[in-house]
């Protein structure tokens, strides 16, 4: 069980030359229902141990499950969003095995009758030929219950190996889970790790948009197990796969799959065989290690759960739920891209900057799309990068941006002053209007003040005034510049120019 010896890895390009990778991804989604899957216990995180349990989720003798309707809705909506068929009739099944985190020593799940099946998710990935759409086929999405949490005591690492005993908290036992299982993902070739990452990323966005889960990989409300196998070529039969658990971030998924490909390649190239087993990803050392072998595979003795009756979602109900689905991300992106008239590269930047929702919200609040994009991708993205935070973490809202634009349109400030206003908002000085007032950033609109400044500037540079009078209108720039400087930029340059010409009695349009 040593975790420090790094196995031999084949160079990635060589792996791709010699093998065809196949993946299978299993994602568990914790639903954000108020109560558990089969009982009314609360689901909130962080409660004191064993205070959110009842006879049902504690598996006490005599207790019986009753299905949470909201969980069914969540399962159906997820299935629909993944373009799945929703079962006309399905049942729960018991998956029988013994483990201390499972109070009944069986998990109530679904076996051969999942509630949703045969779907797909189209995932855009970046390839050498530009962005390509990769279709990940979904085998099924089914409902099950989560287990309790064991804490291993007495060992050095807090993991099972070396522990003296364990202590169990059943607060999480019975939380509703949806398991989404892909069909074997083939044809990804060298992009396999990227496909896996993009798939989970997209799935996460989808689930977030559905509002069914917190989808926090770091908190365990979204968990991914990655299955990887290699075969000599795309028409060879599937190789033996390993399952890697503990991949807790998008980066880990990509790295773990890549690692497994490289590790398995060495074994196969040497004429060895892959052990079908569960492996554990280590984020700190960037490698997978072997768990217990699955050669002594558990016989789960599945049979239909007799304490629960079949689920037969009426087609009308399914359609009602379909109407609640948000626009799929790819469709939304395409629609907005067309509406804004921007190209792929610019759209990519908006999305990669995490600005899409903010831009949309700013437009909804009253700005035009070009201005909205300009601010979020320009000044604010720069600021976010400088501060090392996400765009959405900045202390400025879409409504604030609209206020800034309104001030510009009214002539109260100009673009340059607007940046100062935004800096003031970010610093917590108040709303744009308040910042303008407090800092005195308003453009000078009073003609007499401007004239005074103009006369001052002329007085300081009489020869320039002479040039202007004689027809060299370009020379006006210097006077205007001087006035802008003396007013600390709080003047409308065009207006200064007009006043200057009027003052000198020169026709501007000459």
């Amino acid at each position, binding site marked *: 069980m040593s975790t420090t010896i790094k196995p031999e890895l084949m160079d990635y390009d060589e792996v791709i030359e010699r093998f065809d990778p196949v993946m299978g991804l299993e994602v568990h989604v914790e639903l954000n229902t108020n109560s558990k899957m089969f009982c009314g216990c609360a689901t909130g995180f962080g409660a004191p141990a064993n205070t959110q349990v009842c006879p049902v989720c504690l598996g006490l003798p005599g207790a019986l499950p*009753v299905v949470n309707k909201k969980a069914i809705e969540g399962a159906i909506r997820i299935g629909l969003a993944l373009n799945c068929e929703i079962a006309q009739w399905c049942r729960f099944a018991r998956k029988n095995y013994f483990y201390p985190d499972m109070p009944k020593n069986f998990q109530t799940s679904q076996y051969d009758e999942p509630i949703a099946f045969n779907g797909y998710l189209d995932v855009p990935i970046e390839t050498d030929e530009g962005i390509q759409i990769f279709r990940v086929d979904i085998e099924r999405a089914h409902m099950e219950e989560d287990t309790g949490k064991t804490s291993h005591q007495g060992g050095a690492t807090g993991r099972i190996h070396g522990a003296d005993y364990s202590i169990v908290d059943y607060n999480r036992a019975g939380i509703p889970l949806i398991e989404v299982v892909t069909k074997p993902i083939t044809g990804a070739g060298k992009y396999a790790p990227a496909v896996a990452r993009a798939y989970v990323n997209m799935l996460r966005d989808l689930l977030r948009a559905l509002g069914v889960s917190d989808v926090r990989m770091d908190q365990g409300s979204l968990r991914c197990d990655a299955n990887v196998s290699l075969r000599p070529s795309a028409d060879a039969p599937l190789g033996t796969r390993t399952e890697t658990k503990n991949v807790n971030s998008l980066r880990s998924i990509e790295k773990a799959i890549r690692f497994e490909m490289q590790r398995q390649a060495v074994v196969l190239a040497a004429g060895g065989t892959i052990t079908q087993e569960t492996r554990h990803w280590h984020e700190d050392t960037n490698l997978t290690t072997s768990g217990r072998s699955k050669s002594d595979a558990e016989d789960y003795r599945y049979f239909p759960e007799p304490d629960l009756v079949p689920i*037969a979602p009426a087609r009308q109900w399914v359609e009602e739920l379909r109407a609640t689905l948000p626009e799929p991300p790819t469709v939304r992106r395409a629609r907005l891209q067309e509406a804004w008239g921007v190209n792929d590269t610019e759209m990519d930047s908006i999305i990669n900057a995490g600005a899409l929702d903010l831009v949309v919200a700013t437009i909804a609040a009253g700005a035009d799309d070009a201005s909205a994009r300009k601010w979020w991708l320009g000044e604010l993205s720069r600021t976010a990068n400088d501060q090392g935070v996400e765009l959405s973490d900045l202390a400025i809202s879409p409504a604030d941006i609209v206020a800034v634009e309104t001030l510009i349109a009214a002539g109260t400030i100009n673009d340059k002053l607007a940046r100062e206003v935004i800096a003031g908002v970010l610093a917590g000085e108040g709303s744009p209007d308040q910042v303008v007032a407090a800092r005195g950033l308003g453009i000078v609109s009073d003609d007499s003040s401007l004239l005074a400044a103009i006369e001052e500037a002329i007085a300081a540079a009489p020869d320039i005034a002479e040039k202007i009078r004689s027809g060299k209108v370009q020379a006006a720039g210097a006077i205007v510049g001087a006035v802008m400087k003396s007013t600390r930029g709080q003047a409308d340059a065009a207006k200064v120019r007009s006043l200057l010409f009027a003052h000198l009695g020169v026709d501007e349009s000459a």
Partner: protein
Amino acid sequence: MSETPKISADDVAHLASLARIDIPADRLGYYAEQLEVILGAVAKVSEVAGDDVPATSHPQPLTNVFREDIVQPSLTAQQALSGAPSVEDERFRVPRILDEEQ
């Protein structure tokens, strides 16, 4: 399956392991014999129904029994732990686990 299945002591040992029951080695044969006799008597079930007969898993034709997603009172930790053979830190203390989680 018309002939009586043979059940060996090893078969019983495997089943006992799946079922987490320690059956002493000298009792495995005893259970094996009895299992054979009982299976012999019940094996005829596989001969009766054709493929066209559906299985009945639930006696009453109920479907779609749900409850609303409303929180109900839980047990207190004291009640939950009241029958526990061993408790530590408000949790159920269990002997060391060998198997990785499924």
